[in-house]
């Protein structure tokens, strides 16, 4: 008989509490903005943290509060930003699409000081012998810390043993940039095609010793560029993406294959011939002008 009482009493208690909670749920209901869940549905949902807020829910809240722009979520791009803008009743002012880029093409071109058999992680490798695994103190290790940081499968180690970004998949979330212990990954416009793939800031002779495809800071590209878009800073060429129009003249003139796209021999020859012809034409013109005087 006792067991019946026990079951009954606890059952009644539980039912009463259940009822109270159900009623309380209705009475104390907090109205949340319906736009919150709509905005969250438009975000990437990877909780990558690239926006600087704690996860996608935090980002949605910040957008709703007006603290973050509708373009805060880089992974969903302009399309997603337009959707969010429509929910918020704003015009989307999407920025230029940006992607990550790895500024090193060393890998197999750079020598190795010793064979590293430790944890296959770039940060771990930097801790061994001052990180001198590669001959180059600035270059990519190729252990793929950035690869594991990427939630979008957009960065891989290429055949040269260097990390390479898949532009189409990249969402510019910034995870790889934060993960790279050598700070080799930069944010560049999607439409940019010409890159200096070297980050070695040592002087020319030192660089030549460690890597065949490297920038020695000779300044040939700087002198060739008609748009003032490439400059040697700290012994390494840097492209100003705002000025660059992807003419690839700097790549063709680079004696060390440091600028992407790396030209074929034929292209290089043709460019040299064209340059020579142009110089001859200019000289002839000058001579004609002097003769006319």
């Amino acid at each position, binding site marked *: 008989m006792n067991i019946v009482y026990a079951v009954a*009493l606890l059952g009644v*208690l539980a039912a009463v509490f259940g009822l109270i909670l159900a009623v309380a749920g209705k009475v104390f209901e907090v109205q949340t903005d319906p736009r919150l869940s709509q905005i969250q549905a438009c975000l990437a949902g990877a909780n990558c943290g690239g926006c600087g807020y704690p996860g996608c829910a935090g980002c949605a809240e910040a957008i709703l509060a007006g603290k973050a722009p509708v373009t805060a979520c880089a992974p969903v791009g302009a399309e997603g930003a337009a959707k969010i803008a429509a929910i918020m009743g704003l015009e989307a002012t999407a920025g230029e699409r940006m992607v990550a880029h790895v500024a090193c093409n060393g890998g197999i071109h750079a020598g190795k000081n010793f064979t590293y058999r430790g944890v296959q992680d770039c940060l771990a490798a930097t801790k061994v012998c001052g990180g001198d695994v590669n001959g180059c103190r600035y270059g990519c290790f190729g252990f793929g810390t950035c690869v594991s940081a990427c939630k979008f499968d957009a960065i891989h180690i290429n055949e040269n043993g260097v990390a390479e970004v898949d532009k189409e998949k990249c969402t510019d979330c910034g995870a790889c940039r934060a993960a790279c212990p050598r700070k080799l990954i930069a944010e560049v416009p999607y439409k940019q095609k010409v890159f200096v793939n070297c980050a070695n800031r040592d002087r020319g002779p030192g660089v030549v010793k460690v890597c065949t495809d490297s920038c020695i800071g000779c300044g040939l590209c700087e002198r060739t560029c008609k748009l003032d878009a490439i400059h040697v800073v700290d012994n390494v060429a840097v492209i100003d993406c705002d000025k660059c129009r992807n003419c690839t003249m700097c790549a063709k003139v680079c004696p060390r294959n440091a600028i992407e796209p790396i030209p074929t021999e034929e292209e290089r020859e043709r460019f040299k011939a064209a340059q020579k012809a142009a110089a001859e034409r200019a000289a002839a013109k000058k001579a004609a002008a002097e003769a006319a005087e």
Partner: protein
Amino acid sequence: MSITSLLAISLGAILTNNFIFSQFLGICPFLGVSKKIDTAVGMGAAVTFVMGLASAVCYGINSLLKLAGLEYMQTVAFILVIAALVQFVEMFLKRYIPTLYTALGVYLPLITTNCAVLGVALLNVQNNYNFIESVVYGITGGLGFLLAIFLFAAVREQLEFSDTPKAFEGFPIALVTAGLIALAFMGFSGLQVWPQ
């Protein structure tokens, strides 16, 4: 019941019979949420709040059980009550005191399964406390928890920077520290102010 007995209960709950350091109740949040002082204090405040409330409500439930002659169902009934209570309090706070709700944050629902809260309800029954004594014991027990977790968090913040041997890094050294603080709290056992 007099002021002296309430004082004795408070002193016992905070120092001599501290819930963490001498009764070893509520160790889970004590270790889990003590990495930073501000989160630790948040947790302590939430525990104090819920322990006070739970003591009051469980006192009522216990008299109900006594009436039905079902005292042996205490544990089950108290768990049920505490879980429902925490849920209810959370809803209430979210609606009416959102500042307190955000301050307590994730700690409030975590407390549902905290054994210090269940412990205080059961100890109230064991010690035959009346309603006021129960509430006082609940609140001061919570304050004791707050004190313990605050002290421990303060030590752990310093431990982060200390040069601990590799094998002791993280939890091992934290547990050693907790043991040492517990030993220190043993010193309070001479402080008994039992009412005659």
